[in-house]
């Protein structure tokens, strides 16, 4: 039968179910049927995963697919193809499109385009405010009903404290939906294009003060105390920010956060040649920040790893540093980058890494994914942790090439990306 699949002899890591052993995984009718070693699988398609790792399908809760509005940079179809090439069976598209995803029809549009692309599951968040203008609440309820998995004005930050307070309160009536924030206080951030510090001083580029991030995290957490609404800090980049999140978690507040590969691997030093592929928001910080983020990953304070895949045209990235757009396209190499940042130096072990890319992000957006529990949709990622390869942006399925990792030698190759029992990507 179609969508039946047996994955044999792989090392299965299913953190939610505490599985970490060599075993077979059976998918029947597109859903997990069991993890074990004595499956009768006559006539079922078999993948031999000997020597490879088999995990629940990877989830990236922060990508930009640019559709509608900037289809020259990325479409839901091209982004979906990039996602499965990167090992991701579920992604969450950000609503800062043109026009933004701030109503139910737009949410449905994203889902429809994703179904047509038939690669990865594409979820979307809705905008917190109409037109992402930070003023009036958007129709959160209707978007939630249409399938939005959370709300954010990402790309912008809700500046007005009263508006943010209202958004958190209002969202609380839906119980299980997260409000996410791109934390950046606008007046302090100013026209900054890179981290405010030594490099911005010697390059003469306007800096983004780290306080701009930390203040909003602190402010929002005070607001969260008044509601029970789950609150998620997107792409936290500073040691100060992570400290505030750590304290909130210790108080038992429903606060989660994610970190990107670039904030774990790159520092402001990378900007020294004005290479716009390193222009990203939040900006690349310092070695101290990287160390604090890694410590937080080790301590379980960081809930999810997210790429913030932000595709841009080459012609736009060829502009002056001041004029070029923010963003790094990394969906297709993000997994190997996390290995480089966290596994290779021994920050965490494999089950911890996989948890941060499967069950834990699934928990943030409240979807029943990220595990191999029987009955859950049969999404699987198979990779070889030992294969080394060179990142080659020219091979990307993404429409964009703004990738500072181009030419990097990395380890950990995606072999199969399987969605509902169907192989949507294989390295062969």
């Amino acid at each position, binding site marked *: 039968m179609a969508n039946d699949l047996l994955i044999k002899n792989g090392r299965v890591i299913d953190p939610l179910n505490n599985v970490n052993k060599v075993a077979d995984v059976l998918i029947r009718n597109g859903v997990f049927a069991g993890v074990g070693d004595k499956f009768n699988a006559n006539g079922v398609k078999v993948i031999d995963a000997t020597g490879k790792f088999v995990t629940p399908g990877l989830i990236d809760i922060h990508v930009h697919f640019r559709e509608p509005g900037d289809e020259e940079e990325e479409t839901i179809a091209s982004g979906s193809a990039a996602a499965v090439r990167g090992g991701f069976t579920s992604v969450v598209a950000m609503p800062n499109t043109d026009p933004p995803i701030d109503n139910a029809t737009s949410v449905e549009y994203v889902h429809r385009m994703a179904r047509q692309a038939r690669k990865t599951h594409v979820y979307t968040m809705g905008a917190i405010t109409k037109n992402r203008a930070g003023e009036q609440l958007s129709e959160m309820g209707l978007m939630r009903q249409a399938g939005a998995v959370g709300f954010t004005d990402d790309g912008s930050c809700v500046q007005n404290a009263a508006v943010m307070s209202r958004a958190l309160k209002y969202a609380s009536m839906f119980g299980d939906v997260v409000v996410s924030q791109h934390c950046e206080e606008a007046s302090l951030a*100013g026209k900054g294009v890179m981290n405010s510090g030594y490099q911005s001083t010697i390059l003469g580029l306007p800096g983004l003060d780290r306080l701009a991030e930390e203040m909003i995290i602190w402010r929002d957490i005070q607001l969260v105390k008044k509601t029970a609404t789950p609150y998620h800090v997107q792409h936290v980049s500073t040691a100060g920010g992570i400290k505030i999140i750590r304290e909130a978690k210790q108080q038992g507040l429903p606060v989660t956060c994610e970190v990107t590969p670039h904030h774990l691997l790159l520092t402001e030093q990378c900007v020294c040649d004005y290479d716009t592929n390193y222009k990203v928001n939040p900006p690349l910080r310092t070695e101290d920040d990287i160390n604090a983020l890694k410590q937080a990953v080790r301590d379980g304070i960081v809930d999810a790893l997210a790429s913030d895949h932000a595709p841009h045209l080459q012609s736009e990235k060829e502009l002056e540093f001041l004029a070029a757009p923010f963003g790094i396209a990394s969906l297709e190499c993000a997994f190997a980058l996390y290995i480089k940042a966290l596994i290779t130096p021994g920050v965490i072990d494999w089950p911890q890494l996989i948890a941060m890319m499967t069950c834990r992000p699934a928990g943030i957006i409240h979807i029943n994914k990220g595990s191999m529990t029987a009955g859950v949709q049969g999404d699987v990622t198979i990779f070889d942790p030992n294969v080394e390869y060179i990142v080659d942006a020219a091979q990307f399925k993404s429409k964009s090439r703004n990738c500072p990792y181009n030419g990097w030698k990395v380890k950990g190759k995606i072999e199969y990306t399987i969605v509902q029992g169907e192989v949507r990507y294989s390295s062969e």
Partner: protein
Amino acid sequence: MKTADKTNFQWTHKHLLGLKDLSAQEIEFILDTAKGFEQISTRSIKKAPPLRGKVVVNLFFEDSTRTRTSFSLAANRLSADVVEFTMKTSSVSKGETLLDTARNLEAMGIDIVVIRHNAGGAPKLLSRSISACVVNAGDGYNEHPTQALLDCYTIRKQLGTLKGKKIAIVGDIAHSRVARSNIWAMTKLGAEVTLVGPPTLMPSAVDKLPVKISYSLDDIIGELDAINMLRIQFERMANNPFPSVREYSHYFGLTVDRMKKARPDMLVMHPGPINRGLEMESEVADGPNSVILDQVTNGIAVRMAVLYLVSQANQIVGQVKS
């Protein structure tokens, strides 16, 4: 005049993007070379043939009269053909991109691009993308290398050396490419540099620069060998970094009264154009300590040297390739 030690030294830069990455020896070499060009401007035939047949483009995206004129004269005196290409545009406005403009110019067969741009790093971007020599005539708040070179040239000519000299740079350090280039050049040449201005006009990590910082001009003026007064640029004062011009002048203006505290031989410098009465009183700008017009004169020799050196280096790069 101290000259660079030439042993095992060769000038290899086909671009002059900034002074931050040049060695003291390379900076000295530019200044030494400039000395050889100085006399050309003083004789009746103000021209020599080394860049005959070369084309220099002044690609200016910001208003500038004196720097553009100085580069034009420098190129003319080396017998180059000079094309003026002035485009008042913001880098964020739509239209032809910087790279397209540069590639078009290059397709017309140019040898040296002198670029002034409001975005820091624009000359670097250009140098990565075209084969012509690129000379930075000021980019954003990053660098203005020829201004700092002519400042150093002027000081070296007046005082013999920069080594051990106490020099203050006064004003809007945060938004000043002149300040940055001067910090690199002067400290590399052994001067002791103090930045003076209100904290709101200091860059964020000023404490990590190889300089001293003072918020009081009165405290330090007595020990200075030279003072470089920056221009207050009102167009960059949108954030209101100080309460009023009056208050700024009170603390940081170079007044006749304040000059009484200075050493009698302290050099007074300014990159121009001067806001008379704001950062400097007219009596000081025109007074005996002022070398402001010498700076302008020396600027031509320095720019001739720079154009000559990048052109020579380009030729050698060609040799390495072939």
